[in-house]
């Protein structure tokens, strides 16, 4: 569908395997990678999968056609090992991005440091709670994606650990893993009723969850601006367009942003670099992260870091 026969053919083909673009983050990852490939004039095989079995078969058929490198967003971090081993056997370098693959050897892994995201989120959340309650105490809830997303797993683990060791007064009332975003609304509605005023904040390990939480609160008429005594602290991850907008509208406290476009771009760059140089300076490449809050959203600092959703939107508009 998206075979990019670029103007200047470098003779290098790269397989890009991503998830279906069911949300903006996924699309931004893909766009970043594609843009980088375009700049280098590499030929791309792009495959999108909506479940594990499909991704496995895609990897195999891409390998069968012969590529110089594979850039993969693993659908299930635990279960892609088998195909990555196959690629390794065929001496095709594999670069995973965003989600880590476990139990196998990859040439490069490009992502934000998800442990760091979790830790940063914990400290940020604690800061918000301090602002609200005057002490490092309060009750929060935690939403994350399913187990197969190792990135979410790492974030949640780190978050919990920091909370436990450094902020014993902060209580995690409830934690839930959700596959899709439809059910989030129901769950948040139930929590809102159940914990009522008790709940001080919600941390979402990804912003597709944050966006649904916003919808739920809006429907319940419980969406108050930051600073309002009834305001429920919301801390997101990734910086989705809807969430960035909400921060600008003063409805969400903050987000631990990572630059999706950059992750995609860097992954492709890493592959390119490896193919050119024959090696990478380090196997694990981390993309910087940044906490964006209502206060710093319009600062120079943030502009410098870049809000991917803005870039991506611009690109999308240009594309049209």
């Amino acid at each position: 569908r998206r075979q990019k026969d670029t103007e200047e053919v470098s003779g290098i083909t790269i397989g890009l395997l991503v998830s279906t673009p069911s949300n903006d983050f996924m699309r931004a990852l893909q766009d970043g990678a594609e843009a980088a490939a375009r700049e280098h004039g590499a030929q791309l095989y792009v495959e999108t999968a909506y479940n594990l079995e499909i991704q496995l078969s895609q990897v195999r058929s891409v390998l069968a056609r012969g590529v110089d490198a594979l850039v993969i967003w693993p659908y299930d971090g635990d279960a892609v090992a088998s195909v990555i081993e196959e690629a390794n056997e065929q001496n095709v370098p594999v670069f995973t991005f965003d989600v880590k693959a476990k139990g196998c050897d990859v040439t490069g892994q490009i992502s934000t440091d998800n442990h760091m995201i979790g830790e940063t989120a914990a400290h940020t959340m604690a800061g918000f709670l301090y602002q609200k309650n005057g002490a490092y105490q309060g009750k929060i809830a935690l939403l994350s994606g399913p187990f197969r997303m190792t990135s979410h797993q790492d974030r949640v683990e780190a978050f919990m650990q920091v909370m436990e060791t450094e902020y014993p007064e902060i209580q995690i009332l409830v934690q839930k893993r959700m596959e899709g975003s439809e059910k989030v609304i129901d769950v948040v509605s139930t929590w809102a009723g159940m914990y009522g005023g008790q709940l001080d904040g919600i941390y979402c390990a990804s912003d597709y969850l944050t966006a649904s939480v916003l919808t739920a609160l809006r429907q319940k008429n419980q969406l108050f601006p930051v600073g309002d005594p009834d305001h429920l602290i919301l801390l997101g991850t990734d910086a989705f367009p809807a969430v960035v907008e909400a921060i600008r509208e003063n409805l969400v406290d903050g987000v631990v942003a990572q630059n999706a476009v950059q992750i995609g771009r860097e992954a492709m760059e890493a592959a390119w670099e490896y193919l050119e140089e024959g090696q990478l300076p380090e196997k694990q490449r981390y993309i910087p992260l940044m906490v964006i809050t209502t206060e710093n959203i319009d600062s120079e600092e943030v502009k410098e870091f870049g809000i991917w959703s803005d870039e991506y939107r611009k690109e999308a508009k240009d594309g049209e």
Partner: protein
Amino acid sequence: MVNRKEIRRKSRRYSCLVLPPLVIALILSFMSEYFLTPVNLGNLLLQMTSTAIAAMGITFIMIAGEYDLSCAAVLAFTAVLSASLAVRSPFGAVLGIPFALALGAGIGFLNGWLISKFSIPSLVVTLAAMKIWRGVALWLTGGRTVSGLPEVYCFPGCARLFGVVPVSLIILAVLYIAGQLMLSRTRYGYEIYAVGRDAEAATLSGLGVKKIRRNVYIVGGILYAIAGLLMAGRVGAALPAAADSMEFTAMSAAIIGGCALGGGRGSLVGTFLGVLTMSLLDNGADLLQLSYYWISIVQGVIILAALVIKTQGVQKRQKQTESLHSDRVK
């Protein structure tokens, strides 16, 4: 001069249907103090609207003796397509809702037409329809969520009348009451039951069996479209992958609610109770922080239990009256 036997018959039947949600509700009200709060009960009702309306469509179809696996796919497809229309222009926003309804009706008609025209089993036709419409929904959107829906379009799903009563609940109530009235008080209802109970006898009595079957698919399609609209309105976005495996949830609810696979049995009251059972389980999982996996298990067990109890009852009765007659007169 209403028949006493009939009253007894009906009360026994309904007590069987009321029991599961009642028991679960009782357990929940003991185990969680939040369960009986108005907020939670409100949430519970709101959460079940889409499923309840889709299950209503399935009920019509099952009473007429057919199946429908395409329910969830049609729901997602109509929602996604009409939402795409709605976000394009203010004009589209107004047209979105009638367009969705027409689309649902059209797809329902197509299903019904294929089934009656070629006498293909409905299970296969709707299996194919499921694959096709889900595929088209994903293909048209490229798998992307359609968001930024205009307010007019979201109105049925998220607005509240006087800021209190959710419009979707009103729609749910109106549809169920109208549907139940139609099934039990109009000639069409009698005909649907007759076709489901004994299609051959109905044909020989001069009923237009094929037409009636086609019509229930149209009704079903419209109801799926409404369910899709409400879901899109509530979520504030139309997802091409929405309502994943809702066909099973809706069918399970209808079965728990007394629909028989052979047709001719079931009611909307029963289906509502079935959906309520499923929703109570979901709500219970949220309240008690149980994992969803548990719920799936409990649902399965309830379906089995409902059917075992029902068939046990039937078998007992049949044994009393078993004879040569039974298989002749039918």
